[in-house]
């Protein structure tokens, strides 16, 4: 008799909870998904396909579905993977083949050797961000400020006239380096000749005399 009561009580409880959950499933039904946009915003939008997906958005969707790792984006580098790990609460993994964290791939831009271009428009079709201009049988050229350096135009070119070159550093893109932390003792530090990088700090040495 007692076992029957026990079963009845548990069954009643299960029924009640089941009904509540069933109602909640309808009430809180999720339409669409809101994370993909945030993931996509972190990706560098080179649309290069190096992750194995056809662009940044499909890759973002794959990440959110849990089908892709977060470290497949070489242009985003370890920095990007770190941001993704932060956003999604996943474990950070260095970008495959990126070596150690400091080695960041320099920014590249495509250059068309214009004398050799035959005007086939194949690179224009390959460029995911419309950064190449030209018309059929006219010379093509790359708008360097729009080029994301994805290299997708290099392969289609039948005459191999597209080079990837690194973007040189200018006053506008230059930035201060991470301050060097001297590990040497004070005594040895005085023997080291001044170099420009370490000399920009004049405040603390000024104080010593002032």
């Amino acid at each position, binding site marked *: 008799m007692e076992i029957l009561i026990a079963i009845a009580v548990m069954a009643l409880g299960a029924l009640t909870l089941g009904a509540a*959950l069933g109602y*909640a499933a309808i009430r809180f039904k999720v339409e669409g998904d809101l994370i993909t946009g945030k993931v996509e915003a972190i990706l560098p939008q080179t649309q290069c396909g190096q992750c194995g997906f056809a662009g940044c958005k499909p890759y973002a969707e794959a990440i959110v579905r849990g089908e892709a790792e977060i470290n497949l984006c070489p242009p985003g580098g370890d920095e990007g993977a770190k941001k993704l790990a932060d956003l999604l609460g996943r474990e950070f993994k260095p970008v495959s083949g990126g070596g150690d964290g400091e080695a960041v791939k320099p920014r590249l831009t495509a250059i068309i050797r214009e004398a050799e271009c035959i005007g086939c428009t194949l690179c224009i079709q390959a460029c995911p961000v419309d950064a190449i201009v030209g018309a059929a049988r006219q010379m093509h050229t790359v708008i360097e400020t729009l080029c994301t350096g994805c290299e997708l135009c290099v392969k289609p070119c039948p005459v191999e006239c597209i080079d990837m070159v690194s973007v040189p550093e200018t006053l506008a893109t230059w930035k201060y380096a991470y301050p060097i932390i001297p590990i040497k003792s004070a005594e040895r530090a005085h023997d080291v000749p001044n170099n420009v990088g370490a000399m920009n700090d004049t405040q603390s040495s000024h104080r010593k005399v002032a």
Partner: protein
Amino acid sequence: MSYFFLLIGAVFVNNVVLVKILGLCPFMGVSKKLSTAYGMGAATTFVLTLATGASFVIDHYLLIPAGLEYLRTLSFIVTIAAIVQLTEMAIAKTSPLLQQVLGIYLPLITTNCAVLGVPLINISHGYGFVESLIFGAGSALGFSLVLALFAGIRERVEAADVPLPFKGVAIAMITAGLMSLAFMGFAGLDR
């Protein structure tokens, strides 16, 4: 006034994490970021308060009259599981990002020993309904407080020069230990 002491006691003196050492899984797991810790704290507070109330009702009006005290653990877990499921659905609807970040720890609230432990403590202490609710809410607040404090410390430690052998979980454990010692200092506050 005794309700007030009960609340203070649950939050600080008998802190569920640092003194009773319950609920350590999310405490270590989702304390890497302050924002996540807030989310987890809120979710746990909701579940824990609801669970204490529900389990009191089940215990007093279902199990005890039927003489089924031995089904306590089982029925509490089922109730908690349902509440957690409900919470997860609500979070998925309102904040998908939080759901993604909390990940596995959200369903794991089901097996969070704090969530089961607090209703059981309630019964062993013989608390009434209001007392149970206050104790449950207090424990949950204590959990959230400690989780947020710990996440704040971990964010800072993340930026520190931690010796290699201590990096990661090791320094987090040490931090948790020190925090636990600090919370021991609240003992005797409500007396």
